[in-house]
C-alpha cells in the first residue's frame, strides 16, 4: 500500500519491516545477555546492536533518511563528535579496575 500521501518513500510495509527488525535485534540482545561473555565484550556487542537500532529509528521512524542532506550533516556529525569526546576517558575504567585492591 504505497500511495504518494505516505511521505516520501516511507510506506506502511517499510515501517512494519523496520519495526520487525527492531524487535528481532532486541531479541538477539536479550539472548546475548544469557551467554557468559566478559563485561567489555558484552558492552561492545550490545552497544553495536543498539547503534543499529538507533540508526533504524532515526533514519525511518524519525524520517531523517528522507530529509535534505544539509539537515543530516548539521545534526549527526556534531552529535557523533561530542559523544566520542565524552567517551575519551572511558579506557580509564580499565585502569581503575586493575588499581583496585580486590
Amino acid at each position: 500500500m504505497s500511495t504518494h500521501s505516505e511521505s516520501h518513500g516511507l510506506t506502511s510495509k517499510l515501517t512494519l519491516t523496520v519495526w520487525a527488525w527492531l524487535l528481532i535485534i532486541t531479541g538477539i540482545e536479550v539472548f546475548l545477555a544469557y551467554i557468559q561473555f566478559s563485561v567489555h565484550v558484552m558492552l561492545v556487542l550490545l552497544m553495536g546492536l543498539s547503534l543499529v537500532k538507533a540508526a533504524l529509528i532515526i533514519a525511518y521512524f524519525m524520517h531523517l533518511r528522507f530529509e535534505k542532506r544539509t539537515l543530516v550533516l548539521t545534526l549527526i556529525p556534531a552529535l557523533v563528535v561530542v559523544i566520542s569526546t565524552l567517551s575519551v576517558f572511558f579506557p580509564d575504567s580499565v585502569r581503575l579496575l586493575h588499581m583496585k585492591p580486590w
Partner: protein
Amino acid sequence: MANAHAEELRMTEWDGGVLPYSVGHKKLGMWLFIVSDALTFSALLIGYSYLRVSTPNWPTPFHLWPSIAFSSLMTFCLLSSSLTMVLGVNAAKRNDRVGTIKWILLTILGGVAFMGLHLKEWFNLIHEGITLISNPWGVPQFGATFFGITGLHMFHVFTGVLYLAGMAAGVSKGKYGAEHVEVCGLYWHFVDLVWMFVFPLVYLLSVKMH
C-alpha cells in the same frame, strides 16, 4: 508586491529568505532539542558504563522473571508505540483527523503500559531493598545509577504522554495540523531511541545467571 518579490529573489538561502533545510522552524527546533537531550543521556550512560566496567562486584539482581521479562515487554510496548506514531503522522498527512487521533491514542496506550510496567518493576526492586543510596550488595552506585537513569527516562515518557494527549486534543479541535503531529512524533521516537540504550546497559548487563 513587486518589491517583495524582488526582495525575496535577492535573499540567498542562508539569509533566511527560504528554509535552508526544507523543514519548518518547529521541526528544526525539535531536532536541535533532541540533539541536546541526546547528549544529556549520553553523558549519563557513559558515566554509568564507566562505573559498571570498573566495579568488579557490580550487582546482577535481574532475574528472567520478572525483571528481564518485564523490561523486554516494556521494550516491545515502546517500539510498538513508535510504529503507531508513524501511522498517526501518515494519517495526519492524509488529513485523516479520526485516524490521527486513533493512532495517537494507541501510542499513548503504549506509553502508559510502559510506565505501568516500569513502576511495578521499580516497586519490586524497592521491596528487595534497592534504594538510591543503599542496596543489599553494598554497591550504592547501583541504585543511584539505576533510578537516576531510568527515572530521567520515565520522566521523558511521562512528558511524551502529556504532549501526545495535548496533541490528540488539539487535532480533534482542528488546532493542530500534520506538522505539529510530526514534531510530536519526533520527540516520541527519541524517547523510544533512548530506551534502546538504557535497556541493554542497565538491564542486560546485570542479569542474574542461573
